[in-house]
């Protein structure tokens, strides 16, 4: 009964946030527009480079790689800003006397937004990439598994930014930290260019960051699919997921204690 009631409560947050996201079409269309611009621009770039390359499939490889990388980045709503606002304005305190967990409530809302973004960007991006490069670097049988792993990465990315949002307990602004995380994702995760083009010593450093499995290992499957890499990406991502969730639980409890004492 308690579990059913929880599903009903948090399911309502998921469905309401989805409806709000669909109602707010400007944001949704803006994201799709940005992704299409990126795909068209990079397609142009890799077509030019591909002409002089020994590998004629370079364009398809990098375009699909870019699409999956951008899906992880662009799907995440600005959760860190929402949480910072909640903490700074005291909104969090006003939810303490409601029979819901504030963290679960915000998580469900953002998970819903992320999923809507993921599906809409994924559909538009897949169609565009397929029209531009019909020769995909993966088989369509591998596609559902790759997409599932990319979705898992998007979920971890969302939680990572949730952790950034909770850091506003100690930091004046989370904007700088969020920007740093995004840059690190580009550098150590190879979100735009695969890490295989970087020197080995750099890849060795990247391996110790969550971005390595979150982006590179996962999206590399789009052009270099193997069962071993699937299990490696899954295992490492689950490890980072546990670590990030651990941090969030600790930060959320610390925050609740502070709110108890100082209020809204």
């Amino acid at each position, binding site marked *: 009964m308690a579990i059913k009631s929880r599903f009903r409560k948090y399911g309502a947050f998921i469905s309401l946030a989805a409806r709000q996201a669909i109602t707010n079409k400007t944001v949704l269309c803006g994201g799709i527009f940005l992704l299409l611009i990126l795909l068209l621009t990079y397609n142009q770039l890799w077509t030019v480079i591909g002409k002089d390359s020994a590998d004629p499939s370079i364009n398809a490889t990098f375009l699909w790689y870019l699409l999956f990388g951008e899906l992880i980045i662009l799907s995440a709503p600005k959760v860190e800003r929402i949480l910072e606002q909640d903490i700074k304005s005291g909104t969090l*305190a*006003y939810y*303490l006397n409601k*029979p819901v967990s504030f963290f679960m409530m915000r998580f469900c809302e953002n998970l819903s937004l992320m999923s809507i973004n993921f599906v809409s960007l994924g559909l538009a991006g897949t169609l565009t990439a397929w029209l531009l490069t019909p020769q995909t670097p993966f088989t369509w049988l591998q596609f559902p598994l790759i997409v599932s792993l990319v979705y898992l990465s998007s979920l971890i990315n969302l939680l990572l930014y949730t952790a950034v949002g909770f850091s506003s307990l100690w930091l004046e602004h989370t904007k700088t930290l969020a920007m740093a995380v995004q840059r690190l994702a580009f550098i150590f995760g190879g979100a735009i260019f695969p890490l295989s083009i970087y020197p080995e010593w750099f890849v060795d450093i990247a391996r110790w960051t969550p971005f390595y499995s979150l982006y590179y290992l996962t999206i590399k499957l789009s052009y270099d699919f193997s069962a071993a890499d699937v299990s490696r990406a899954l295992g490492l991502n689950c490890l980072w997921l546990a670590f990030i969730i651990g941090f969030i639980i600790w930060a959320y409890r610390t925050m609740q204690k502070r709110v108890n004492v100082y209020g*809204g």
Partner: protein
Amino acid sequence: MHNIIEACNLTKKFRLKKTGKGLKNLFKPQYKTVVAVNNISFAIKPGERVAFIGPNGAGKSTTIKMLSSILYPTSGEARVLGMIPWSNRRRLAYDIGTVFGQRSQLWYHLPVQDSFALMGKIYNVPEIAFKKRLSRLVRLFEIRDLLNSPTRSLSLGQRMRCEIVASLIHNPKVLFLDEPTIGLDITAKAIIRNLIRQQALEEETTLLLTSHDTDDMEKVCDRVIVINKGKLIFDDSLTTLCDSYLNKKYLEITTESGEKIRKVIDTRQIPVKKALDELVQTYHVADLTVENPPMEEIIKEIYNRGD
């Protein structure tokens, strides 16, 4: 009859960082303690409609936050429906409702009825009971035409009506209202006051309403607690307060020539109607307002008599 709300020597102190310059302040910050609520005690019986009034910064909201389980007190005890609020948040949540005038619990882009449905689910209200309850509240608060409107398109007065409905969906025994009329125009204020009173009377909901507007207490409540600088300075019936301290009315007229004339009348000596008749006969009145004395004056009067 048992008390539904009890507060005993309730105190809340906040430790605030002093703003200062230089490295010393960075490594060794200075703090000051602010006493927001200072040792207050009172008890409220079921069905009572209590106004918790005082000027800005008096400690009204802090008290309501402690009683509605948002804040821990620094010391003292409190019980709401027999439960210690801050230790029984989840259990108590199902029996209390809260409306904070400056916070919204409605979803900005969605029709208000979606927010009501969400409230029903949050409070585990069964589907049939929810429909019945919502239908009653919609009728009482006259919001049928607003149900399909997104929150963003509502006026402040309309939004406040919907906020109150949202907080009543689960049929709470106690309703905490923190400045429910703040920012509203005179007409909207009158409507909200009337609706709050009507609902409380019909459903015997216990009300605790904070405001710095004396009209809120006059129109809604039957008992008044006055708080100033964290201390309780008056706790009695509305009749007592009106007889003792609200016997002055401020009349202001604007004549047709644009001149403004103010008069303070003692209602024990001259009824308002008579005073108004005299003014209308003496001047060519273009506009006229009748107001209660400001909160600061009532508090000053309470202190003076206490001395």
